[in-house]
């Protein structure tokens, strides 16, 4: 299988603060829009990326503004990839409770990973759990 050919890419290291990756995400979505990706795909990528970044800031880096987040964006003709790495100890995403269960529905938090998995075609974590890579395939139905 030939390697993926990326049409656009961006690698940045930013402070671990809310909104620090906003311009990078805006840039990625603008590139997607320029290549006629569906509005729903743009929405999906923004939502998943924002959730991953919020988790990195709040949980991964423990809201420590001295830490950093690495974000990598890749855009191909049929696939977009967003990777987010924090400086935390990681976690096991398989151990998260189901936020849609009747005992969890009224719990205010715990939905970010679920939304990432629902809106992206593929979500995978490294072994430590402090790096997530999310892919969205063009025309992937929700």
């Amino acid at each position, binding site marked *: 299988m030939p390697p993926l050919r990326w049409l656009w890419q961006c690698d940045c290291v930013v402070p671990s603060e809310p909104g620090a990756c906003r311009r990078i995400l805006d840039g990625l979505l603008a590139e997607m829009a320029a290549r006629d990706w569906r509005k729903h795909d743009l929405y999906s990528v923004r939502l998943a990326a924002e959730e991953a970044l919020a988790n990195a800031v709040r949980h991964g880096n423990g809201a420590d503004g001295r830490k950093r987040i690495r974000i990598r964006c890749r855009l191909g003709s049929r696939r977009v990839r967003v990777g987010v790495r924090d400086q935390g100890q990681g976690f096991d995403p398989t151990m998260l409770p189901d936020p849609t269960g009747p005992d969890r*529905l*009224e719990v205010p938090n715990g939905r970010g990973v679920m939304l990432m998995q629902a809106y992206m075609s593929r979500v995978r974590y490294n072994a430590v759990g402090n790096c997530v890579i999310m892919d969205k395939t063009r025309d992937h139905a929700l």
Partner: protein
Amino acid sequence: MTGYRRLEVNEVGDVTVVRFRDPKIIEDINIQELSQELFRLVEVERRAKLLLNFSSVDFLSSAALGKLITLEKKVKENGGTLKLSNIRPEIFEVFAITKLNRLFDIRDDEADALAAF
């Protein structure tokens, strides 16, 4: 109604109708300010009937959903009623995926929601 940075607050009869000034409810600091204003309506101003009109909102994060859940609890604890309206399809999808459409009373538009109080 003055005194709210993140909200537009009006009254229709005995119902407090709230709209959001930020189209994208994403960042923690905005969500924090917004939720404080919403909680103030309930806990300080004792508004019993609250309608959140989402017509100006085109993006909502899970953190914002969490604040809505907390708001729903506070409204109930105060013996009040909360309804949501004018939620765009892509945002309603988030409520549906998270099954929060079962927790909240969501109506198509403001008129429907007001009639249901």
